[in-house]
């Protein structure tokens, strides 16, 4: 491509996202009419369709702040963060961080501090929905792990690719759940820390509130720590951490997908 073409494309793209810019030069309508009105329609459709995509991905956030506020926040995001991929279902990865910043600067002080984390749950749900399938761990591998004695601390676990963790200072998993059931979210006490596991079990995307220990265990396993180290990290300073209950939840939702034997040779 020539430099001239590059410049024209950059000019066109910038004008699409910025209504203050003039219609790009050298556009021609088929019937010789003024192209600026047509360009304005296209510009409007581009931004509107991206706002709609965000509204589809973050329905709970939209209900919490109201459609009008959501759309103005989304429009600001769209203009600053146009999509890099044609897959609109994945558009919005940067939206939660944008919301965190937006809320700090524009919301009345102290209002909606949980909104960004709520968006993180909603984005994680989309990722979980589109994540690859993977079968749960085979019984043989479980039996082998249980039979390896002291070495059980050195096995590593693999978790389902759909699984992710959202740690929050606020009860966002409960807020999200309240929205699903039409419960009165306003009456909820959201001002307490809560973490969430988001995962897909079969065809259903689930959001489960968990304590910080369980969240840290999952994160440690995802970082590749051994079973023993992950459990120790999660339990450290957190007597409420329940390893058995955490594993039971993971296994019940088919989220434990492999057990790898210790790397060192058995002595």
């Amino acid at each position: 491509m020539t430099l001239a073409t590059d410049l024209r494309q950059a000019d066109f793209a910038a004008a699409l996202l910025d209504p203050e810019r003039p219609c790009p030069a050298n556009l021609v309508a088929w019937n010789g009419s003024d192209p600026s009105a047509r360009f304005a329609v296209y510009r409007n459709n581009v931004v509107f369709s991206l706002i709609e995509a965000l509204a589809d991905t973050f329905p709970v956030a939209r209900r919490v702040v109201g459609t009008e506020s959501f759309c103005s926040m989304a429009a600001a995001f769209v203009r600053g963060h146009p999509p890099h991929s044609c897959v609109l279902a994945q558009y919005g990865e940067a939206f939660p961080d944008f919301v965190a910043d937006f809320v700090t600067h524009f919301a009345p002080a102290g209002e909606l501090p949980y909104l960004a984390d709520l968006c993180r749950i909603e984005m994680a749900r989309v990722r979980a929905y589109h994540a690859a399938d993977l079968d749960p761990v085979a019984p043989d591998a479980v039996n082998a792990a249980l039979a390896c004695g002291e070495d059980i601390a050195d096995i590593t676990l693999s978790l389902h690719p759909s699984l992710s963790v959202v740690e929050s200072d606020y009860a966002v998993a409960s807020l999200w759940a309240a929205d699903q059931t039409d419960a009165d979210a306003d009456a909820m006490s959201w001002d307490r820390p809560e973490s969430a596991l988001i995962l897909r079990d079969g065809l259903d995307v689930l959001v489960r509130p968990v304590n910080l220990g369980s969240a840290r265990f999952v994160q440690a396993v995802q970082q590749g720590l051994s079973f023993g180290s992950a459990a120790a990290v999660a339990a450290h300073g957190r007597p409420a951490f329940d390893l058995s209950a955490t594993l039971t939840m993971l296994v019940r939702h088919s989220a434990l997908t492999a057990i790898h034997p210790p790397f060192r040779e058995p002595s």
Partner: protein
Amino acid sequence: MQATVTKLPATVLALALGAAFTSLPAAAQPADKEKCYGVALKGKNDCAAGPGTTCAGTSKADHQGNAWSYVAKGSCEKTASKTSPTGFGKLESFKEKKA
């Protein structure tokens, strides 16, 4: 990782792992899936929606006849689709009727 973290005894680890599996219901088979056409909401189709579109999330209308979603096996032809000639999702792509 902090150096002060205390290791859990191997027996605790083994008991927790064992308990997680003994509590598992016997038949936890993953559900079979089938491709189902005409039931995806706009922008939420799982894959390509015909000429001119090459990726997921591009279908232009609710229940587009050539856009498909994965659904649990056996449930496709029971899922309502307002554009389908039969009124339900189909296992092959179809030409939409006007909703």
